[in-house]
């Protein structure tokens, strides 16, 4: 027990007050979705998700969700196939580049998405001409948005593993570089790679600014469209998305703890 901790009473007061501030809007949203105009309560709106009569209203959401999931997969691919190998390379062969690399990787935190989108607009005009205006092209921008989060997760794993010794041992036993990276280093970094992938999925599913201003249909922009016809559907999807992200973050937390245990 930490001697600096406040008394049980102080702790409970803080917990209850702050907990209420965070719980009330969520509970209110849940009530909002089940309360009918005549004052009764029913799950009709939740059942409406599977009602063929609602299909036309819901269509933008399913399209947007499909696009967002595709974007999540491509963004994770960028993280695993471009960022992670480069981080391994920098840590093994160019340790002097690490500060510069870290600066570049963390830079997107300091650049608001709304500022980035002003510069992305002309680039996406060109992309639209060459690669088409499909939603999947947004993944290039999203790869930058998730960069700081993914970098931190993977770097924590890299710091916990003696990559140099592992690589040298594998090399001296005759392994080529592809084998070293795929069969020796990647399994040792799996916690960081998993956390980086999951947080990328969470960020991509929640992204609105870039997609909205570049006129691409994703999950979040679809909810704004649907809200204009039916205010209750976005509330239902918000609760579902929150639950999904909460579970995702619990998994990440477990993965991070695994890394910490491996270190100690």
């Amino acid at each position, binding site marked *: 027990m930490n001697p600096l901790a406040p008394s049980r009473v102080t702790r409970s007061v*803080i917990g209850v007050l702050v907990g209420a501030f965070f719980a009330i809007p969520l509970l209110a949203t849940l*009530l909002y979705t089940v309360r009918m105009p005549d004052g009764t309560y029913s799950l009709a709106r939740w059942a409406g998700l599977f009602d063929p009569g609602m299909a036309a209203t819901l269509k933008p959401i399913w399209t947007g969700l499909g696009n967002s999931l595709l974007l999540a997969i491509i963004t994770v691919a960028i993280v695993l196939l471009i960022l992670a190998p480069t981080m391994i390379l920098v840590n093994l062969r160019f340790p002097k580049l690490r500060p510069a690399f870290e600066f570049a990787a963390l830079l997107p935190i300091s650049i608001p998405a709304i500022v980035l989108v002003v510069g992305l607009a002309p*680039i996406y005009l060109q992309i639209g001409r060459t690669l088409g205006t499909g939603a999947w092209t947004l993944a290039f921008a999203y790869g930058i948005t998730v960069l700081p989060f993914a970098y931190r997760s993977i770097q924590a794993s890299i710091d916990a593993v003696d990559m140099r010794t592992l690589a040298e041992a594998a090399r001296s036993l005759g392994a080529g570089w592809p084998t070293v990276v795929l069969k020796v280093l990647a399994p040792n970094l799996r916690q960081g790679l998993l956390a980086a992938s999951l947080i990328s999925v969470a960020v991509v599913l929640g992204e609105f600014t870039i997609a909205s201003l570049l006129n691409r249909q994703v999950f979040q922009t679809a909810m704004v469209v649907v809200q204009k016809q039916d205010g209750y559907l976005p509330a239902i999807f918000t609760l579902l998305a929150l639950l999904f992200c909460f579970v995702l973050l619990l998994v990440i937390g477990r993965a991070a703890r695994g890394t910490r245990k491996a270190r100690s």
Partner: protein
Amino acid sequence: MTTITQERADAVASALSPGSAPRARVRRSTPSWAWLGLVPFAAYVVLFLAVPTILSIGSGFFAKDGSFTWTNVAALGDPLVLNTFANSAGVSLLTAFVGALVGALVCYAMLGLNPEGVVRRTVDAAAGVLAQFGGVMLAFVFIATIGIQGVVKVFLQESFGIDIFANGTWLYELPGLILPYIYFQVPLMVITFMPALAALKPQWSEANLALGGTRSSFWLRIGIPVLSPSFLASLLLLFANAFSSYATAAALASQGSQIVPLQIRAALTSETVLGRENLAGALALGMIVVVGIVMALYSLIQRRAARWQA
């Protein structure tokens, strides 16, 4: 002049000295392949981070026909634009302060929880989710809670006869941003400030007690002075976070440009705002100057604060 000739002399000397040149060539041949591995990532970052940033900052200096102009940047001095920046800074400052204070209190209460326990783990995960929650979904939650048909709003009106919108429906105006912003500022504070608070050593408290100090003298003389750099750094991060936030405001205020990001939206989606083209670039420049200064201060203070967390 002298340095150049010196360098040249060194180069000539090394080229002439036998043995050194071949060895250098052999050593250089391996890294030359490894360098290639950096190319994809470097190209990607240049194309989608460096170029957009330069474009967005630079575009404010050019008119639509490509000629250089000061008029867009001069628009940053327009009373309307200045007012928007003041609104943004005001909301960010207020929510950063409230978020930092409440978040610090939550961290303080969390000291009493077992770091490996279920409650602590759940609070950590919840803070992680809610800190990322500042999007359109947060706007929906507040519309469902205190919107015109909102559950809490209707409940207050029917049970107590309190009309929270007696002075106008402020939820869709500037004041409406305050509650939603605090909703994501507090969890962010918990995430960023908790490591600093957890790094306070119990031994310091024991030393304080052994030397005749009290609980309050511990916080006044040791705890708060040690934590204040971390607190200030977190406060700056929260400010930048609110200042950059766009989605919640965009979903709540579907028209109007009360804060800078919304004014950028207006400048991007309509051809001319305030009778100027490329105003979005000038506004983006203004934003990045503010956020850049705040984040530079943040990393400066954070580096100083990290001293106590070793």
